[in-house]
């Protein structure tokens, strides 16, 4: 019941004309940047961070949340019509969705993904509303040692467990740690990693890192790959109305997708890749139309993963709001927006900032309604955005990148750092290093260090706090299993498979 009362409070915050306007601006902008290749929610929210100096926290978080949800809707349009997954989470949508578009059923693919996103986004947001207070009760028992261990677990899952290589993921994470440590150490006042430059005393702004990696790095990468050939836009054919049979095949997939996506998103691991791939595999297995998978495109293969994607995006908000634990680049940048207001997300956030949190959750319900309207009847508008030619698109992105970076302190040094990070971003993209762990490491690293030092101060320098507290030990063990488990398992498999070949007269 308490949740319902709080939600009522939230709706009273979100339904003010000004906040509805922010929600509309956020969802529209979010859809646009989701559609445009090369722009994502993390970059957009980073560029808009200065707005936190101008408006109330409720307004900017409603704006950011609208962008966050909107980018999911827009991203699926691009994957279906262009087959260029804007974000890793929409790779699976492109698999079947683009095939459907090519066989003339693009309209139905767009409809099932938009309505599925709405269903799963709404269920996911309900999940946030009801799960967050439960997690808070649990989290109140956390001490600094438990927080530190939880962050270690999150570090391992976001960088080592997800993604193609744990070594490269961890490398990105550690680069993020180094960037996060630049500047004055808040506990002792000592400057760290400043190379004697006074410009670095305040640290490197997250805007510069996000813009460098996502805008400059991406532009360099796209320029370098002009020989790779272009993707063509599949013209939108077929009506947006789904037939009764298509509804029948979609709705179960939506619900299954939401049921897979939300819990995985809500775990302190995050990431939308695993739930979308899992949902795809399940739909393929359960489908009565297996012949359509990989040929003309199966609607379940769009509906399920799209729902899983949106539900997990909602799930990510649970550890973010209740534990201050961001598990995606976008969530990490939203966390830095909280810091910019002097608010520390954590178990107390739901009570001390009830208006903000519940207003945000309520606005997510509204955002879903606005988004399904924006993305179905107005789909033609977004398809036109896809036709912006690459030269002007990327040049324009860099103009905005300059505003965002140079505007921080009008210092050319910031531009130099931006371009160095852009070069690093290019190399990371080229050599398959994930970029999100850099942002997460940079934001969450200093928080982990604070908890670590707090725990060690309380224990008077005794390291055993991390393994004598049961909860902390459990979390660290999980992290350890996450890091080494897959490697040990692969090694055993490898040994078992090559075992028999080696036995006869090998030595």
């Amino acid at each position, binding site marked *: 019941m308490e949740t319902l009362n709080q939600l009522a409070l939230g709706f009273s915050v979100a339904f003010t004309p000004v906040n509805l306007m922010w929600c509309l601006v956020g969802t529209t902008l979010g859809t646009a940047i989701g559609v445009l290749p090369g722009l994502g929610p993390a970059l957009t929210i980073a560029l808009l961070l200065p*707005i936190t100096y101008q408006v109330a926290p409720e307004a900017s978080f409603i704006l950011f949340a609208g962008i966050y949800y909107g980018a999911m809707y827009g991203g699926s349009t691009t994957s279906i019509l262009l087959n260029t997954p804007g974000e890793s989470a929409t790779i699976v949508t492109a698999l079947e969705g683009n095939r459907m578009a090519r066989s003339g059923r693009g309209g139905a693919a767009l409809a099932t993904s938009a309505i599925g996103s709405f269903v799963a986004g709404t269920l996911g947001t309900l999940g946030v509303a009801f799960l967050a207070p439960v997690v808070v009760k649990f989290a109140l028992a956390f001490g600094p040692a438990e927080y530190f261990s939880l962050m270690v677990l999150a570090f391992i899952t976001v960088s080592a467990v997800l993604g193609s290589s744990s070594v490269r993921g961890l490398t990105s994470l550690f680069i993020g740690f180094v960037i996060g440590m630049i500047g004055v150490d808040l506990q002792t006042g000592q400057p760290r990693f400043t190379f004697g430059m006074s410009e670095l005393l305040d640290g490197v702004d997250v805007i510069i890192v996000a813009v460098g990696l996502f805008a400059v790095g991406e532009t360099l990468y796209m*320029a*370098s*790959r002009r020989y*790779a050939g272009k993707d063509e836009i599949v013209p939108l054919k077929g009506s947006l109305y789904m037939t009764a049979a298509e509804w029948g095949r979609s709705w179960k997939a939506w619900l299954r997708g939401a049921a897979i996506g939300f819990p995985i998103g809500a775990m302190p691991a995050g990431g939308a890749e695993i739930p979308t791939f899992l949902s795809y595999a399940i739909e393929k297995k359960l489908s009565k139309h297996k012949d359509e998978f990989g040929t003309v495109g199966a609607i379940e293969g769009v509906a399920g993963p799209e729902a899983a994607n949106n539900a997990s995006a909602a799930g990510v908000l649970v550890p973010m709001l209740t534990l201050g634990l961001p598990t995606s680049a976008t969530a990490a940048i939203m966390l830095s927006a909280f810091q910019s207001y002097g608010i520390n997300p954590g178990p107390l956030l739901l009570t001390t900032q009830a208006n903000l949190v519940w207003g945000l959750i309520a606005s997510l319900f509204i955002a879903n309604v606005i988004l399904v309207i924006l993305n179905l009847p107005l789909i033609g508008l977004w398809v036109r955005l896809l036709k912006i030619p690459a*030269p002007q698109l990327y040049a324009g992105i860099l103009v905005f990148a*300059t505003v*965002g970076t140079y505007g921080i302190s009008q210092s050319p040094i910031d*531009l130099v750092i931006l371009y160095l990070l852009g070069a690093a971003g290019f190399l990371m993209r080229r050599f*398959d290093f994930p970029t999100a762990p850099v942002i997460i490491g940079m934001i969450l690293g200093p928080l982990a260090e604070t908890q670590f030092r707090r725990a060690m101060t309380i224990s008077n320098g005794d390291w055993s706090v991390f393994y004598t507290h049961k909860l902390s030990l459990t979390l660290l063990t999980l992290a350890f299993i996450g890091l080494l488990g897959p490697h040990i398992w692969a090694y055993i498999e490898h040994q078992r498979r090559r075992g028999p070949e080696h036995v006869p007269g090998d030595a």
Partner: protein
Amino acid sequence: MSTSDQQAPPPRLAVPELLIGVGLLACAAAVAWQTLAIPVSPLYSKVGPTVFPYITMTGMVILSLLLIVAALRGGWQPEEEKETPTDWKAMGFVVAGLVANLLLIQPLGFTAASVIMFVLICHGFGSRHPLRDALLGLILALAAYFGFAKALGVNIGAGFIENQLNTVINAIIGIVRG
């Protein structure tokens, strides 16, 4: 003697990946150098400001060694990436645009520098209409300056173009107000 030698071709050293591994090792060295430069007060000797940097440095050394090993075993670059030749000319124009922006933003102001960057990047991406691009870049830069920057309360400094336009705008406001 092992028979498996015939099946798998001997792994080839991957030079770009090796350079990345070595580069990361160099970064770890820089971290070590900067960590040693952090003065430690005995008051904080238990968990001072250097504990995390040392942990980070250790992690980076281990990771860079693992990357170097992977490079010696043939690297990890996806086939698709290897097969696509890098378009150095396009990248060159993008880099030229960025450098021009960096050098010109203070003397000429944001808008003028952005227009030059815009044209160079468009050229890099294959656009062959420099005048049209310059016009587009001008519109976009002014929109960014007067819309985005002013709305966010960001100050990006004014150059020649911005000053002229500000003068015009102020004059118009003056006329309207009588």
